[in-house]
Structure formats: C-alpha cells, structure tokens
C-alpha cells in the first residue's frame, strides 16, 4: 500500500473537492425528504388516534349559543361551525375516517392489483391477454366518474365507498406490476430459479416480487394521496361518508356556504388534507430517490 498521496496542483484539487462535497450534500437532502414525510405522517396518525386525549370537546356536540365562532375563541382553538360544534375536534376525528380510507383502500388495491399483475405477467398467454383487456377497459373510464356511478347504484355510504375504490383502483397496480413482471421474467435470476425447478408460485413471490416491489410501493404513496383526496371529494359532493360522521371533504362542502363570513370552516379542514397529502408525497419522493439511487 502507498504511504503518501500523489502530489498535485493543490488549488485545483481544492476547488474540485468543494464541488464534490456539494454533491454529497444533496444525497443527504434526499434522505431528509423521506424522514420529514414519515414524521409528518406519524404526527397525523397520532393526532387522529389520540384525538380524545387532545380535545375535550366532542365532534358532534351541538352548541346553539356559539355558532360560527372564529378561531382563537376561548375553548375553541379553531372556532366552531354553524351548529356550534368545535372545529378542531371535528378535524381530528375526521382524520380517523380519512386516514382509515387512505390505508384501507390503498392497501387492499395494492395487494390485489399487484397479485393480478404478477400472475398476468408471469403466466402470459390468454390469461394475460384477458386481464390486460379488462385493465384497459377500466382505464377508458374517468376514474371519479366511474366511482360516482358505482356509488350511485349502490347507495352512498362509507362501506360502499370502499367497495367502489376496490373495484376501480386495482387496475393501476396491475398494469405496473405486469409490465415489471414481463421484464423480470427474462432476467438471469428468474431463468436460474426456473432452471432449478422452483414452482411458479415460489418464483413469483420469492424471486420476482421482492425485486420489483419498489415501483408499486412508490406508486402506492401517490395512490394514497389520491384516495384521501377522493374520499374528501366524494364527501364534498355528498356521496361519500355520510353525516353526522365528520369527514374533511363534507366539512369543506358545508363550509363553502359560509365562505363570505366564516372562511375558517372551508379552509382549515383543507389544510389537514394538504398536510397528509404532502406527507405521503414526500414519502413517495424520498422512497423513489433512496430505492433507485437517485440521479447524478
């Protein structure tokens, strides 16, 4: 081994080293994004789960004596709505429903869609053809319109909202996973596994899936944001979670009527949506950078 560095024009080296250091800093910044996203999400979940401990008011307690109080009124940090219900309590309790939808709807479609895509891509042939035609068919419909139509037929309720999302959202995952599987099928490690006589199930789940999962997981973050916004949108239209259960979207819809006098009713629940949405986005971005070793 050498004992000393090769001598070089030191000023040149200094300047180049500074540039190199700058690039190292940007890698740290990317991990930062992921951490911030996770922290934000943790805060949101904690706030929703621990709601009873954080606010003493009930989200449904009507107080006709104090309707439409602005934020920072005594006893009501964020004010009250037209029925005198505390806004902060309603926002926190609504978080439970909206986060439940984000996780519940996304996880089922993630698992279901990935399975279908994996099988379609691996098996190929007629099965693949049929499933992908089905996927194409679903993609021909504007997402929200199809969900609204399904809810129209089944009747608006929280459960039917889940059903509608499950029926329509798996297609994105299926399409992504199928494309990944088709490519993975030709890779060395899969050919090797098959040559060793491993069963198709084993090849799919223990070989292909771990290597391709990163794309769908990153996508699921984007999807989670979409589902939260979807839940809020449907609530806004009166087609999602039904009253009296508090939900961010329906709160915004109600608040719209009072936009001229009591701006906080429509604005603040929206900030909650944005907060959670940004959290998922940052996690998605951070994961993308960390898992794919970023761009140079």
């Amino acid at each position, binding site marked *: 081994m050498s004992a000393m560095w090769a001598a070089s024009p030191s000023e*040149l080296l200094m300047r180049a080293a500074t540039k190199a250091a700058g690039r190292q800093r940007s890698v740290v910044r990317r991990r930062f994004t992921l951490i911030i996203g996770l922290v934000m999400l943790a805060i949101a979940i904690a706030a929703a789960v621990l709601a009873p401990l954080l606010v003493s008011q009930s989200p449904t307690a009507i107080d006709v004596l104090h309707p439409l109080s602005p934020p920072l009124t005594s006893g009501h940090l964020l004010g009250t709505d037209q029925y005198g219900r505390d806004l902060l309590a309603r926002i926190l309790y609504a978080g439970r429903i909206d986060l439940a939808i984000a996780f519940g709807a996304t996880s089922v479609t993630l698992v279901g869609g990935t399975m279908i895509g994996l099988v379609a891509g691996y098996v190929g042939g007629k099965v693949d053809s049929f499933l992908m035609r089905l996927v194409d068919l679903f993609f021909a419909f504007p997402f929200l319109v199809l969900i609204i139509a399904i809810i129209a037929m089944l009747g608006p309720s929280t459960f039917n909202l889940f059903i509608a999302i499950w029926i329509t959202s798996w297609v994105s995952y299926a399409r992504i996973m199928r494309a990944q599987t088709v490519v993975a099928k030709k890779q060395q490690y899969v050919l090797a596994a098959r040559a060793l006589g491993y069963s198709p199930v084993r090849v799919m789940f223990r070989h292909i899936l771990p290597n391709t999962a990163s794309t769908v997981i990153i996508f699921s973050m984007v999807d989670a944001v979409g589902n939260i916004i979807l839940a809020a949108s449907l609530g806004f239209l009166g087609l999602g979670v039904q009253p009296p259960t508090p939900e961010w979207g329906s709160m915004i819809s109600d608040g719209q009527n009072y936009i001229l006098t009591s701006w906080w009713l429509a604005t603040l629940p929206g900030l909650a949506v944005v907060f959670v949405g940004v959290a998922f986005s940052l996690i998605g971005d951070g994961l993308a950078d960390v898992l794919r070793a970023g761009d140079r």
Partner: protein
Amino acid sequence: MSALGTPLLTVRDLHTYLATVQGVVRAVDGVSFTVHEAEVLGIVGESGCGKTVTCRTIMGLMPARSVHTEGEVIYHPRGEGSLLGASEDVMRTVRGAHLAMIFQDPMTALNPVLNIGDQLIEAVRAHDRCSAAEARTRAISLLDRVGIPAASRRMRDYPFQFSGGMLQRALIAIALASSPRLLLADEPTTSLDVIIQDQILCLLLELQRDTGMSMILVSHDLAVISEMCDKIIVMYAGQVVEEGTAADVISAPRHPYTHALLEALPQAEQRGQLRNISGSPPSLINVPGGCRFAPRCQFATPECLNWETTLVAAGERDHAARCWRHQEIAEGQEAWQRSDSASA
C-alpha cells in the same frame, strides 16, 4: 496540404477532475501530447484510463457543472491561446469546422426523431450559409463518400432504420461535413462486429489520406491502433505512460504496461492460456503515490512506489516512457526476441 511535422494541436499538462458523490475523480492527471498535420495519433489504454475524457475535454464537451480542468489545449491555426475554458461562442466556431468527434456507440449518437438527411444537412450548414438545395446535394455526396448505398433515398430514413455499421458511416459523414482539420475518433469500432470494424477502419484511413486531416484514434485494442496510427501514446490511470512512433512502441516497448498489453494480444501460433494483466487499475479518487502501475508490474521494485514518476526519454525519436527501469525492459525484450528466433 501543409508539410508533415507542423504541429496542429498541442495538449499541455492537461488535468480534468470530476466532482462526484464519492469524491474527486482525477480522470486526466497531467497529459501532454502534440498532433501534427496529416498525422494519426493513437491513444490506447484500459477502460477508465482517461482517454475518452481527454478527447471530450479537448472538444469542450465535458459538463461544466461538476468538472474542473486545467492545462492548455492549443489549436495552432487559431493562435497560441488555449481552448480550455474558452467561451461557448468561441468553441462553437471551432467545433465542426476545425475539430470533430465521433463517438463509441452509433446507435445512440443520433437524434432518433429526425431523419439522417436533416441531421447531416444541419452539420453541413453549421459553418456555411449555403442554400438548402446545395446543402442537400453536399449531404448526399458525403453519404456516398462514406459508402452508404442509395444515398439520396436513405436521406429520408431514420436512425432506427440503419444498422450499426451504416450509422457509424453516417456519423463519419456528419463529422466531416464542415471539413475539420482534426478528427477525434473515440472507440469508433468497439460496438461493431469484426468485419464491419475492418470496413470502418479502412474508410477512416482512406478519408484521412484523401483529405490530409489529422486524426486521434482512441481504442483499448492495441491491434487496431498499431495498424492505423503513426504515433502512439499509452495511457494508464490518467497519465501517459509511454509515447513514441507506432513502430517504436510496438516493436520495442519501454514501459511494463505497454509490454504487458502486447503480451496479452493473442498470437496465431499461441497455445495454452491467454496472458492477461492481473489486478485492476488504481482508484482515481484516492490516487496512490509513486508509480501507479507498480502493484501490477512484473518489473516492480519497492523503490517504484516512492518514485514520483515523470516521462523519461527512452530510445530514439522522441520515444519516452514513465519508467526508470525502461532500459532493462528494452534489454529484456531483446533477450526474449533473440531466444524466440533461436528456438524458431
């Protein structure tokens, strides 16, 4: 045509450092050479030795953000000022009309959404305000010159409709469109199959002789270099380790690395294992002191690691090597040659 021996391009003490996440990569660490008029200079070395970066630095094609350069690149017809660090406007007048370059992989070296004709005409009109019709005519004759059949019809075709060899011919046509004085060819045949390789190299040699332009040919394949070049420089770990005329370097190498490269070439009558160079090149980030080839060198002694290397004159005619034991290597070479002919 100017007389042979007039310097065309002089590279003096060139350093190119790249700022990366892992640290500073000293891709080119003090390289100097001169290319003369109508001369073919070969640069040979392993992947990562700095030959491509050297060419790109000369052309000014290294990304400005993360790259740092020092030294001089003097293009004599334009005066004695260095092109290194010149403004983009200045470089633009030099590129194409004076210096041109062809790259390693022809499949990615052309814009996929424009047809060959448009891209060639673009090159023709880059330095000449001729009419569209005239440019088209010149383009067709260029394609013809590089051996593309049915040239006028193929003008309308897109890159994906061409084979690798055809694409490389088209790229040569583009490079020559504005009649440059110096062509830099960076591994032009590496991604082509052997028969096409031969054709392309013949084409390049032919064009070089016809136009009297100079050429820098970069390759890791010593066989290719020895066939085509007048002078050779051998690079290792960002430095020039040997330079001289092709005849001198090939027949009487003075640096252990060159020697090893020659040994590694498969011979026709050879039996048994191919000889290769064990080990791998040193890191360009934490560059070791002393001779960089010492760890892999069969002639190395402990002093080699402490010797701050310089190019030492070896033999005749500007032959030089970065080794203080070059004389012994030369004598050793003679001894082997004598024993070879004795046993023949």
